[in-house]
Each structure stands twice: as C-alpha cells, then as structure tokens.
C-alpha cells in the first residue's frame, strides 16, 4: 500500500509539473485529488487494512495530499498570473492618442480680479456693496462735495442721459449711497467694485471701465490706517515687499487727498518702460473723507473720520495678466477668454 501511494505521488507530481496550462493542471487535480481521484481511492481502500496500519497509511495519504495541493495551488497562481499578464497586454492602448475633451468655460479676467479683491477685503471684514450704474447727479457728484459748476467735474467727462441721470463716472457714488442708507449712522467698512463710464477711448482708456472703491468710517481713522490697508491690498494683488508712496493730490471728496504710487513690480524700482524709468507706478487715488461729504450724508465729522480709496480694475487686470491693450478686455475674443480658465496660484 505504501508503495502504491509513493507511486501515485510520483506520477501526480510529474503530471502537475508537466502541465502546460490551467486546464491540464485542473485535470491532474481531478485525477488524483477529486472525489473519484486515485489518492482519494486509497483512503477509501483503507477498510481492508489492519487497525495498526490504518493510522500510518492515513497519515501518509494526508501528507501526500497536502503536498500535492500545495503544488497545485502554486501552479494555479502561476497560471493566473500568466493569464492576467496576457490580458493586460491585450488591453494596452496608445496613451498618446488625444484625450476626450472635457471643456469647461472661463471667467472674464476682470471678474477674476474683482473676485480676488472681494475675497481679500471680505477676509478683513469689509462688506461688498453695489449701486446703480445709471446714477443720479446727486449721488455721483453733489453728495461727494462736487456741486454743479465745480471745476473738478472736468476731471470726469460724463455721459448724461438727462440733466439728472448719468452713467456713473466713479464707483465713489456708492460711498454716498452707503452712508445715506445707514440709518443708525454707524461705522462703515465697504468696498464697491463695478463698472464706470467716461467719455474717453484709446489704448489705455476705455469709455467703459471698472473700479473698486473702498470706504472705512469709524472713530479715529487716520492716514496711517489708509496706508496700512493699501499696503495689504497692493501687496496681495501685485506682489509682496512692494513699497507705497503717497503723493499729495486733489479729489473733491477727500481732504487731504493722495495719489498712491507703488514701487514698480516689474523692475523693483530700478526703472523700466512700464514705470517710465521712474521706479513708481500710480495705482490708486485715496484720502481722508472730506468733512463735507460726511456731513452731507449724515455723519458727524467731529465724531467720525474715515478713509476712502479707489483704483481702476482694468489696469490691475492688465498688470496682473500682462495685457497691453485695454480694448482686449472688451473685444471678447473667445481665444482670449479661454485663456483665463486655470487656477491662479
């Protein structure tokens, strides 16, 4: 019996080893280990053995069985791997073929800038407010200390549609609205981005353009607060470490008034074509809110002070994206628009 088992083992091992595919291996498995397999038959034939022989033979059969199973399993694993390799090879594609396009749209560069400015100021507790583009003379000028016949009205050649209505020339109009709408005359912290209109059209001026206005009214607001705030703004938008220079100027709604130059972000102040060799670029108009403006809109200038600033967003977009002609912003060439579809990092 022992001899028979040894013989089966030898034959089985040879057959397993010599199998060349999964099917032959499976056949060998059935032939020796199946219900009617040769090794299984040995176990069944144990009835004819003596009680002393039974455990010895039983043990032997189990050892051989385990050995064969182990071999089969190993072999099966080999075949599965081969099969998988074959399949993977078959499924190989040309990854250099073009992709299936997933097209997303894009935001207009000016609106990207507006969103960026909004996010910055919202993070500092400012509210974003808007006002009408078809504005009244009262809010656009008179409530900003620019009565009819004031020479400073020349600074802004306007599009009137009646003697009272005009397309707003400045987002400052929203300043007056915000102050008037605040019934408790409590502190104000706002920015107002939006479209503005002036009679002007060339490579650097568009009759329609965008501005953002900022206004803070509270107790003890000073020029130092304005400078600090604008430093945050300019550095976030145009680059860290930029320096600001306050140049005295004149705006009817602020006193004192300053134009703000930023050290040239292209040449870092060394002088280049962008800054016309001066090292500085004018970016903002600003100042301390004129007491007449506070008074006219219901705030007590003895109690409150404030600062206001404004800047052209078109220029900011042009600086940021290297656009040289403002008219590109309004031509809406799809090939231009599509470029603004990535995340700004």
């Amino acid at each position, binding site marked *: 019996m022992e001899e028979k088992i040894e013989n089966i083992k030898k034959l089985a091992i040879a057959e397993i080893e010599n199998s060349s595919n999964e099917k032959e291996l499976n056949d060998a498995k059935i032939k020796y280990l199946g219900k009617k397999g040769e090794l299984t038959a040995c176990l069944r034939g144990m009835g004819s053995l003596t009680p002393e022989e039974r455990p010895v033979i039983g043990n032997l059969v189990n050892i051989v069985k385990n050995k064969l199973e182990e071999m089969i399993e190993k072999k099966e694993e080999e075949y599965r791997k081969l099969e998988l390799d074959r399949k993977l090879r078959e499924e190989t594609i040309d990854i250099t073929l073009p992709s*299936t396009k997933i097209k997303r749209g*894009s935001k207009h560069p000016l609106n990207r800038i507006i969103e960026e400015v909004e996010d910055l100021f919202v993070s500092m507790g400012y509210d974003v407010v808007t006002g009408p583009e078809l504005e009244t003379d009262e809010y656009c000028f008179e409530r900003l200390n620019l009565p009819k016949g004031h020479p400073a009205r020349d600074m802004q050649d306007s599009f009137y549609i009646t003697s009272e209505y005009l397309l707003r020339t400045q987002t400052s109009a929203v300043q007056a609205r915000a102050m008037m709408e605040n019934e408790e005359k409590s502190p104000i912290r706002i920015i107002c981005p939006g479209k503005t209109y002036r009679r002007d059209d060339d490579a650097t001026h568009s009759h329609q353009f965008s501005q953002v206005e900022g206004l803070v009214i509270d107790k003890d607001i000073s020029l*130092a607060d304005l400078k600090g*705030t604008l430093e945050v703004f300019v550095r976030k938008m145009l680059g860290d470490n930029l320096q600001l220079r306050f140049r005295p100027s004149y705006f009817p709604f602020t006193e004192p008034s300053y134009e703000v130059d930023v050290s040239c972000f292209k040449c870092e102040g060394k002088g280049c074509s962008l800054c016309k060799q001066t090292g500085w670029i004018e970016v903002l108009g600003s100042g301390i809110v004129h007491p007449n403006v506070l008074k006219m809109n219901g705030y007590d200038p003895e109690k409150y002070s404030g600062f206001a600033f404004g800047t052209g967003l078109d220029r900011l977009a042009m600086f940021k994206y290297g656009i040289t002609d403002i008219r590109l912003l309004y031509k809406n060439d799809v090939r231009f628009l599509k470029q603004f579809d990535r995340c700004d990092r």
Partner: protein
Amino acid sequence: MKLSTNFVKDYVDIDVDVKTLAEDMTKVGNEYDEAGKLIKATKLVIGEVKECEMHPDSDHLHVCKVDVGDKILNIVCGAPNVRKGLKVIVALDGAELPGGIIKKGIIRGQESNGMICSIAELGLENKFLEEKDKTGIHELPLDAPVGEDPINYMKMDDEVIDFDLTANRGDLLSILGMAYEISAIYDKKVKDIDLSYDENNENINKEFKVEVNTENCTMFLAKKVKNIKIEGSPDFIRNRLIASGIRPINNVVDISNYVMLETGQPLHFYDADTLNGKIEVRMANDNEKLTTLDGIERVLKTSDIVISDGNKAIGLAGVMGGLETEITENTKNVIIESAIFNPVKIRMTSKDILRSEASIRFEKGLDPNRTYMAIERACNLLQKYANAEVVGNIAKYDEEKLENREIEISFENINKILGMEIDKKDILDVYRRLGFSYNLKDDEIIVVSVPRRRGDITIKEDLIEEVGRIYGVDNIVGKLPNIPPKAGNYDKVTRGIRNKMVDLGLNETLSYILVNENEAKMFTKDDKEIAMLLDPMSEDRNTLRNSIIPSLLKIFEYNRARNVEDVSLFEIGKAFYKKNEEYGENTYISALMTGNYYLGIENKKKVNFYIIKGIVEELLDYLGYSGRYSFVVKEDKMPDELHPGQSALISVNNDVVGIIGRVHPRVLKDDVYVFEINLDKLLAKKVGKMKYKEISKYPSVKKDLALVVDKEKEAQEISLVIKKFAGSLLSDIEVFDVYEGKGIPEGKKSIAYSLTFEKSDRTLTDEEINIAMEKIIQGAEKKIGAMLRK
C-alpha cells in the same frame, strides 16, 4: 500750465535744475507732463554767410560759405532768402533737431557740412511762427556775434515745465502763485512785483463810468491809458509768452497776456475811442448777438455775463472780447478792465462757447488783491514798453473782501488725521514757509491767517493737507484700523451663478452697455422705449442697451469673422429701461451658444434648442427652483428677433423671468441660440434652504410608456397629465424618445417616457404599479386623446 522758469526766477531764486524742480513740485502735489528746454535743438551756432552762389546742378539750391567763428563751412541751403552777408543760425554736423540729426554729406555733388536753420526747424510750435519763419531761414540782426549760441543770443534759453495741475489750485495758474509754492518748498522769499508808474492829473471818473447790474460780477476795475505806441514787444515778453504757450501779437496785447500770466488775473483791453464813456456789466438778453474777437457771431443766453457799452454787448465777460472794441494797429487810447465774475457762470459760458486762457482762470476763482495788482502792473508795463500816459484815478465797482481767512486748528487734530507725531515747531514752520501768518490761541490751538490767493483753503482739513504736503508723509508707518473684527459679506449667489455657467462650459464675456439705437430695441417686446445719451461719442454707442443679447450677438460675429466657430458665452450685467420718463436698470444673465458643445466626457454635439434649455434648467435647479419653472410658448409675447417656432418664455412660479430660443434667421443666418433671465426678478422669488431628503430604502420600479399623440401636443403638457393620474407613487418622469414616421399615423407622434415608481416605507407590489399605469393610460386617453403605442 506751462511754467517758464526764466519768468518765475523774477520772483524767486531757484538754484536747482528744471527736472529737480519738476520732481520737487510733484512731491507737493503738482504733477507735470514734461520738463525741459524750450528749444531742444543742440549744436547750434551763429554764422555769417560770406559767400552765396547758385548750386551748379539745381535751380533753387545755393552753395554757401558760412563763417561759424572757428572755421568756415561749406553748406548747401535751399531757402529762398539766403544771401551773402546774412547772420544765420547754423546747425553743425551732429546737431539734434526735432526733425532729426544733421550729418555732413554731399548734396547733388556739393559738400554740405551743416544746415542753415529756420525758426520752425528749431522745434517751435507752428502757432508761434510768423509767415517768414515758415518759408525761409531765420535772419538774425546784423550785429549778432558769430560763433556764439544763437538760443542764448535770442534769449530763448528758457526751460519749461508743463504742469498738469489739480482742479483746486487756481492760484498756480500764475507766475506769482508758482513762486509762492516754490518758495515754500525751498524756504525762500518771494520778491516784490514792480507796480510803479506815473499818472497824469486827469481823473478817469470824469469821463468814464462803470455800472454793474448783475450779482455775477463782484469787482470791476477800469483804468485808462493814452497815446500808446503799438509795436512789437521786447524779446523777453515775446519769449516768455511763447514759453508759456501764448502767441505774441503786439506790445499792448502781449502786456495784457503777460500780466495775466504773472498775476493770474485776466485783463481785457478796450480801444477807448470805440466806447461811449461807459461800461455796463449785465446778463445777456435771450438771443442777444455779439461778434467776438475771432469774427464769429455768437448767440447768447440769459446765463451769459456780457460787457455792454450801454446799448449793446461788446464783450463776453471772462471769455472773449468783442470785435468792435478790440485793440488795432491804430488804437491810441485804452481802457483796461480787471474784474471778477461768477466762476460757475463763466464756466458754463465757456463750456458752450470757448475755453480761453482767461476763462480757465476766472472759473477757478480769483484773488481780489490781484485784481488791483494786475491793473497797476499793466500800467507799469504799458508805460515802460508802450509809451503810455496813465490817466489818474480808477473807475471801480468792488464788492469783494480783501482780508485773509482765519482758520483755527489744533496740533492734535493734525497729527491724529495724518497718523503721525509731528513737532509743533515743524507744523508752524510749514505755515511760515507757505507765507501764512498765525497766532497761537493757547498751547494747542493755532489760528492761521490764509491769504486770499489760496482760495482752495477754507476749512481746517485743508490746513492739515498743507502740513502733509510741505512737511511730507513719507515717514508714516502704515497700520490697520483698530476696529472690531466682523465677518464680511458678498453676493454669493451671483458668484455661484458665474461658477455654474463656467462649469457648464461657457466663457464669460464683458461687453459695452452702450450700443446703437437699433440694437437697443432688439430682444425686447415691451421695452421699446430707449435711454439715449445727450452727448454721445459716436452714433454707434449712443444708447443704453435694453438687453445683453445684442452685445453677445456682436461678440459672436466678431469671433465668427476670426473663424472661431464653437462659441458658448454668457454675461452677467446690467440692461436698462425707460418707462414713462422713469429710468432704471436690472441685472441679467444672458447666454449665447452656437457650433459644437462639449458634453463632458461624451462627444461634442451640435448646439440646438434642447442644449441651451438644459443649461437654463441646470441653472434654475442650481438656484433651487427645481419643479417650479416651465417653458411657455406665447407668440405675441416673444421678441421678433427669436425664431417663432423655436423659442419660449422662461417662467418661474408662473411668472415670466426670461426668454430662450433660436435667433431668428432674419437676424442671423447661423444657428445661434440665446437665453436671457432677469436676475433681479428671478432671485426675488424665495427658495427654501437646502435640506436632505430621505432616500427610500425600498427598491424603485422603472416602467416605460410610449404614447401616440397629436403631433402638436407639447411634451410638458403630456408630462403634467401623466403626473396627475399617476398619483403619489410616481417619483420621476423622463422623456427618452420622440418618434414620427413609419408605423405612426400621419399627424401623430410617439413620445416615450421612462417612469419611476417608489414608496419610502415599503416595496411596491406589481399590482399597485399596474393599477397606476392603467390609470395613466386611461387618463391620457381621456384628457389628451393619447393612445398606447403597441
């Protein structure tokens, strides 16, 4: 304002170069456009034409031998007036002229080592050129020193700064004002102006009367000078006028301009013999006519201030004199006017008629002290340079205050607003340098006495600004306002809409709101009234748009012309309306789609009505209006610019908020689809908060249903019928096929729905679903004559 530095040096000593002066002025708030020499030409020298022969190979060129001091040059010259013995301006080899660099060379075989120049070639503006300057070379006086610099010799060695002044600084429209500003910067003294002259013992008031009959003239001074001699002005006056941008005419007219430049006070000179011994200032009569100096007949309004001789208008006050009383070559006696008129009135008149050097100054407001100063200065110069005999006394009307304005301010206030800590003595020093006197009321309060010349300083904040200007604010350390933190707000919905549209593959545009009249009337049904500009820049942009769609159509056409065919655009912006003389605006979202649309990872698809409808639905679902909108066909409400068979109104809560459809082939041949929604109207419709809705734990059952209906039946109506009869078990309904043709009777169509049945608390039985399906089929048959497709 063009500042002649030679001129201002009469009143303040400057020892910096012109660029430094310009930069230092900029630092105190006075920007400039340009600063440099009046005559920019280099390498010029005075020469004498020693010989002048006709060029052998030319009928107009001359070959000259010119002595330039250290050598004799051979120069070919084409000017008709060149001749032997002339003293001329020679540009040497390498000279830089506005027209280019002069190089020696051969002209038609003759050596030429420079150029003999005309005044025009030196770069003087055309308006300053006399006729002879335009046709020939400049002829210098015969005693001009050969070899010397001709610019110095002609006293044109001036340096000019062209300032771009702020609107409040009317005082800087004068040499004296500039002198005060410069003296404050460099801490210098302003020198006195020479106002001396001799008067005869006549009295102007005996023969001449000034009458002011309007509140719009607060001061009117008149002096008379006799027996003037009209001739050319001395060089220094001519050159300073030219440097200041004013054309010299003759000594008398030039003096009036010279004094205006000097003092900022415009003067007007009348030929005294054309007046009837009287001047009246009054408002013009309606349609009153006046021929001004330039020979143009002006029709006046009652808001114009005029000077009258008692009968008729003879001058437009503050803007321009009349032709009839002007100074001519034959004028002997002159009435000098020095006056102050209402700035706003002058501004309005000059806006309608003409901006002049005078009106620019009047409209900024004047210092009444200068009104006196100017008339005396004019007498001084006329006596010196026009041989004038000054008649005694002055005819005047004076309602002005000459005194300084006193303003109180505290040191603390200044430092608090500037956010600095400036020493008291430094603050006081600023006012001293500006020429403002002051008293200390106590330790804290300064009473500053502001001279009338600084009309821009009226309140204490103006005095704070002066400290900021002159002391400087470069040292301010920026800080953030010390105010309580709070959350900032912004319009999240609009931004969400923009993000959604971008996600859906559309490119955002930004277009002009100004369009032409025709475009403004497109894509609206009711709002045919338009808001037009009073003073447009062009016909093409003279109207406010009533809809954004015309702007998008133009953008489409722009791109089509550049072979960009797949165009999907949207814009969020304003459109405007006019209704019964009321004006207003609304925010809209509009979109335009044409060409291919890329459906995510699937293939591209040609844009049709259903794609753009899908965009609208996705947008409305995103905004929370799911199940509350419908697309309604109402032909009489659709704009004419949409295809009548492929357009609809967009309705939310049964209220029209927008339009959608294909652009009418009459408007555009291309297959272009658009929609527009009034966002103000839409977003006013409230939606509930986003809330989780429980997902059924029990399986849903899908059933297909194909109905044969009349071809015209709308899918939306059929869906409503199905929903109505299905009852609460139906959770979703979708069209998956529409078919006409073989197997379907003529005039009918088959429309196939996929229905989903579901109940959240149990599994539905077949029987329940069958009953529901039966109800739907019977209901559809009864309501809309639908038959089950077999």
